[in-house]
């Protein structure tokens, strides 16, 4: 696909890592916020420990790291509303949709695979 002006591609950001311990989650979120300015079709997927990125009640004072989880709540304001969470990843960690701080669609591994199949660009962090 040639990328001239006005091209809209389907971008999916796949978040697989816990929010703290490594910088991947924070820097991934920085990419998503920049991407919002490009008028592309953006969706986010949370799988494996990535589901912890959007868990409620993050308190990071004890590890002296910025709690950036409120930013996920701001994504709606950037017209980023397609957030998919892997059902199996939630269940394996004893979490439910009620434990999450944003509205999401919980999808099975097979549904997630279908969603990924529909994308033009997948950025995995």
């Amino acid at each position: 696909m040639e990328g001239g002006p006005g091209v809209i591609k389907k971008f999916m950001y796949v978040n697989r890592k816990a929010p703290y311990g490594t910088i991947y989650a924070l820097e991934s979120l920085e990419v998503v916020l920049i991407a919002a300015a490009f008028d592309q079709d953006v969706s986010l997927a949370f799988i494996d420990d990535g589901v912890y990125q959007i868990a409620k009640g993050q308190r990071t004072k004890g590890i002296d790291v910025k709690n950036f989880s409120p930013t996920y709540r701001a994504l709606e304001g950037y017209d980023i509303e397609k957030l998919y969470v892997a059902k199996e990843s939630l269940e394996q960690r004893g979490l439910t949709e009620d434990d999450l701080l944003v509205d999401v669609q919980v999808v099975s591994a097979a549904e997630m695979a279908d969603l990924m199949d529909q994308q033009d660009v997948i950025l995995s962090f």
Partner: protein
Amino acid sequence: MKFGILVNEGPYTHQAADTAYQFIKAAIEKGHEINRVFFYHDGVNNSSSLTEPPQDDRNIVDRWSKLAKDHNVDLVVCVAAALRRGIKDNNLAPGFRISGLGQLIETGIQSDRLVVFGD
């Protein structure tokens, strides 16, 4: 085919920078085009001119610079990630340039495939 490349890991600690380089070499040899290589996370450390590996080891930074020179490949280092890790214009290896994350998104839009090398 036109490829965009994202390198998310630093040199020597992780295989990603080596695999990305080998992928790019192979792609160019097959006649494909590399639209851009974007360095993010610890991947920005691939651009440090202060890197001095032992003589009997591969020089990952020089290898990137040579790739840029020989094949006119655009090597872009994320500014925010670079500043966090002490990479600035004055210690940036030849062939690299520092720019914003928009360059990554643009590569995603303009390439046929964006290939991510990382953990």
